[in-house]
């Protein structure tokens, strides 16, 4: 049977939960509601996604909603990130609630925005209508903007303003791109609402006007790229990530960027088949990928704020993903795999950084030293995730980067491969100094850390174990999922 009717529910459910969270009595309860609700939505969407992988793409509401392998895969990643972050939120805000910084007002706003942005991102993923997709992205921007400044510190406000304005301009540019695509569709005599239906465009891609499509794609890459944090449009990213509360930073880094990149991925097969699969569009992605890697490398070397460091790591890894997609074929598969690895690893590292930040009262890595002894769970979690992020084997990130490198060499793009190596190498050398000093440099002042609970330990080490296992053993079903998703992008 067709589960298409589930898709609108997937969008509405978080919205309702958000409304519900406005009427909860206590802050803790809101956080629990966030966790439970998120897990519920995750369970539902997991079921739907698996249906998709098993059978055919789901279509609903006059084809305005669709869930195919690519979006289902992204949905799974998103739900993992959201569930973990929601669970972590309970422990993260406990301190602030105790100190009265996180009152019920904050909590309600937090809950509402949390579920709101969630449903907006689901909307982005499940909409088959490119216009609705754009609406979803804009909505995420507006909703998450307030998540940054739950606490109205000056830094948070400044970060929020930059995020808001840059992303609005970017999304406006993306809207122009969408209009150009629609124009080309109408020349291909797709009328009415079909003009923006992805499935319709895909079927008619070969007869779209390349010139218009190219122009549109360029606007889209710049527009959505701003949201995805590709250099040189990434400047809002470190500010927003460093100022937001850690669960929010985790969601930002873990999925918000991927959601924006997902929009670009939607357009890639269209422009490719319209330009006769000459790799015109993928070339653009390769360029932005390399650029992002190199820029991020430059900023990682002399960085002192741990959350900014992680933010620049996001720029680097988004670049790696874009590079892999751009190289195509097996590289695209590796890039999708890298999306999962990066989201998981990055969100966990943000959790650890957040709690350590509360423990030390600062995010300056020169003062956050000897973390493993101070807090065995969060400290070692941060160190290990950072090692994984800089591409140390045998973690899964190494595997996906390795495959991307291999396909780059196979594809004969030696320049991209060598620049990729250079960038990653610089990141490694630069970040390693921070890691070593954070891990082992003796502590000047005495710092008392809260004893971690079993649940926290399971949260952190479970994620690390997953990364380690996936680096050593990639299950067949998972590979199959990745292959299906890659096929949407134009096949291996």
């Amino acid at each position, binding site marked *: 049977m067709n589960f298409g009717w589930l898709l609108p529910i997937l969008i509405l459910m978080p919205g309702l939960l958000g409304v519900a969270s406005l009427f909860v009595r206590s802050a803790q309860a809101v956080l629990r509601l966030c966790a439970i609700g998120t897990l519920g939505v995750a369970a539902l969407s997991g079921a739907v996604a698996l249906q998709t992988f098993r059978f055919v793409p789901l279509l609903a509401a006059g084809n305005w909603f669709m869930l195919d392998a690519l979006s289902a895969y992204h949905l799974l990643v998103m739900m993992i990130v959201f569930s973990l972050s929601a669970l972590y939120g309970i422990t993260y805000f406990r301190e602030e609630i105790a100190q009265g910084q996180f009152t019920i007002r904050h909590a309600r706003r937090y809950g509402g925005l949390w579920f709101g942005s969630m449903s907006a991102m689901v909307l982005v993923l499940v909409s088959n209508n490119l216009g609705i997709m754009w609406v979803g992205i804009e909505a995420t921007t507006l909703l998450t903007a307030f998540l940054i400044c739950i606490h109205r510190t000056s830094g948070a406000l400044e970060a929020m*303003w*930059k995020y808001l*304005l*840059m992303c609005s*301009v*970017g999304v406006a*540019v993306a809207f122009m791109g969408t209009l150009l695509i629609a124009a080309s569709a109408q020349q291909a005599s797709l009328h009415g609402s079909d003009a923006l239906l992805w499935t319709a465009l895909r079927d008619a891609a070969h007869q779209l006007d390349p*010139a218009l499509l*190219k*122009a549109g794609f*360029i*606007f889209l*890459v*710049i527009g959505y790229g*701003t949201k995805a944090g590709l250099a*040189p*449009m990434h*400047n*809002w990213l*470190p500010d927003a990530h460093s100022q937001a509360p850690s669960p929010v930073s985790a969601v930002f880094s873990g999925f918000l960027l991927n959601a924006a990149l997902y929009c670009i991925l939607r357009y890639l097969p269209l422009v490719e088949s319209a330009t006769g699969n000459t790799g*015109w569009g993928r070339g*653009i992605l390769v360029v932005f990928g390399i650029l992002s890697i190199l*820029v991020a*490398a*430059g*900023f990682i*070397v*002399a960085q002192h704020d741990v959350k900014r460091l992680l933010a620049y790591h996001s720029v680097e890894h988004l670049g790696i993903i874009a590079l892999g997609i751009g190289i195509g074929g*097996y590289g695209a598969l590796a890039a999708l795999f890298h999306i999962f690895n990066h989201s998981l690893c990055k969100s966990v590292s943000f959790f650890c950084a957040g709690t350590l930040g509360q423990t030390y009262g600062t995010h300056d890595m020169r003062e956050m030293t000897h973390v493993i002894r101070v807090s065995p769970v969060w400290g070692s979690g941060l160190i290990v995730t950072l090692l994984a992020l800089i591409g*140390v*084997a*045998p973690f899964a990130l*190494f*595997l996906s980067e*390795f*495959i991307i*490198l*291999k396909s780059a*060499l*196979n594809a004969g793009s030696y320049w991209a*491969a060598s620049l990729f*190596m250079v960038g990653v*190498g*610089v990141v*490694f*050398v*630069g970040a*390693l100094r921070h890691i*070593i*000093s954070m891990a*082992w*440099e*003796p502590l000047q002042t005495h710092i008392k850390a809260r004893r971690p609970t079993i649940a926290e330990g399971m949260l952190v080490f479970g994620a690390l174990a997953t990364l380690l296992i996936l*680096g*050593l*053993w*990639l*299950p*067949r079903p998972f*590979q199959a999922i990745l292959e299906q998703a890659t096929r949407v992008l134009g096949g291996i």
Partner: protein
Amino acid sequence: MNWLVASLCTFFAGGLACLAATGRPRLTRWVGSSVAVLGGALALVPTCAVLGGRAMNGLHLPWSMPFGSIALGMDGLSAIFSAPILIIVMLAAVYGTEYLRPFEGKRNLASSWFFFNLLAGSMLLVVAARNGMLFLIAWEVMSLASFFLVMFENEKATVREAGWIYLVATHIGTAFLLVLFLLLGQGNSTLDFSAFSDASAFAGIAFVLAVVGFGTKAGFMPMHVWLPEAHPAAPSHVSAVMSGVMIKTGIYGLVRVVTFLGAPPPWWGWTLVSIGAISGILGVLFALAQHDLKRLLAYHSVENIGIIAMGLGVGLLGMSYHAPAVAFLGFAGGFLHVINHALFKSLLFLSAGAAIHASGTRDIDHMGGLLKRMPITALVFLVGSVAICGLPPLNGFVSEFMIYLGSLVSVSGETSLPIGGIAAAPVVVGALALIGGLAVACFTKAFGIMFLGEPRSPHVAHVHESGLAMRIPMVILAAACVLIGITGPFWVDLLRPAISAVTGIAADPKAYPAFASHALWMVTFLAAGAAGLVGILVFLRARLLATQSVTQAPTWDCGYAAPSPRMQYTASSFAEPITRLFRVFLRTRRHFSPPTAYFPMSSSFSTEPQDIFHESLFQPVFGAIHRFLSRIHWLQHGRLNLYILYIIVALMALLAWKLR
């Protein structure tokens, strides 16, 4: 093969068991060491079988991993590398039980034992892997495990610096290896060694990549800079494993890759010979300048790796000029030196560890007179020193002798090589001779200043011999050095499968010329005769002195009234003439505050050896990169307007570029 798998499982599972035993020192100690010994013993079975000539059919299991497969194998080449790995690991584990005692309760020894076993298992996996993916992952695990072991005393800034340099260096090497294996496996859906396509198209590039990548791990100059930093930082039994066998995995990888690349052109041999000569000579020179015992030993690893490289180079030249005898002798010398260096270098590190353990200082200049206080340690250190100087009748001589013989054969009437082949002979012979002379200087210094004379500092005067668990491994290693030294021919026979795996010339009867084995036998014979003569002389001397008066007196002080132990020659002053002669390379820093005024109160003189490559090559480069990168930080200046301008500029640039 099952034995091998069992041993690997033992190492990895046992390591986890150590972690499980966190907090119980005794248990940790026993579990960690026994796991290492058991794992080593298990894997020794197939190793010895292969060395004995039995062919071992490999294991090939599917692995749900892109390009990967669980492909294991054990041929002659792997065996001669895995044998020392296992033996040294077992002995070092036994030694470690006592060496780590003082740290119990102070440090997390569970993780230390965990990483030790992880290191052992990964080294074994590296030499047994037959799939690029498996190899690379084992290689990475090896690097990480050794890195965490190096960070044992991580509260010291120097140790952290050392760990950083080590991990950076080894990963830069790994980067080259990634590219290398990707090139080898280009176009295949798997990275199995058996599936590597014909590499003749890019053999040259692949060879260079291998030399850089594996050379970094092995410690070829100038990629050696991490060695003298990392080895002193680690605990002694770990330094013994790292310096004795871990860096050999680099040599293994190099040789293994050469077997994929087809017939070697002469310039490969030349490359290795020149790298070997440079590493050997400069390595021993840097060692001579050190007065930190473990740094000294670390630089000697560079030197011996150089000797090995020269042997391999001679062998490659023999291959490319179709001179089987030369090829055989070169490779035999190189491989045998791999084993020998593993033995005597780990012996030296272990005994040095014992001395440091007892005296509490790593500075040779503060030691002295230890022989009377720790006789066994002194004896085994002496054996190790004679062996590393390549003096007969110990094992170091046998392998160097093979290399000498190889290059002499290349210029002798046995073969007729073109000038390109014979011109290597003077380089190798001269380098080996110079290295030998300087090595004698260096180890007479080390042994003499440490163990002989009077204690140079008070706390050295009251040291005690180390316990049984530390002495037994050292004695075993010393015995092995002597044994290999006097029974050379046997061991050369064991190398045949390895050499045939590399050169495929073992079938050729001329490959292992009769005169070579005869020569080794004669060396043995000479050694026996010498032993007899020593006996006679000792007996005569005793008889002569029996009837005469033998009295004790202070050392002849040339009439000076009150000599104090501090007036003895120190290591630095001993080596000063040579270091002055070679100051071009050494650049030793001197801090001198001379005595002043008529009644000088205090004056001091201290030297601080530098590494010219570290000082003048790597630091400037890294510094420049760092400065450049910190300069591009102004891009993130916090001005929103300009950020948006970036977006617009990017848009315009892209439109201009892509919509031409």
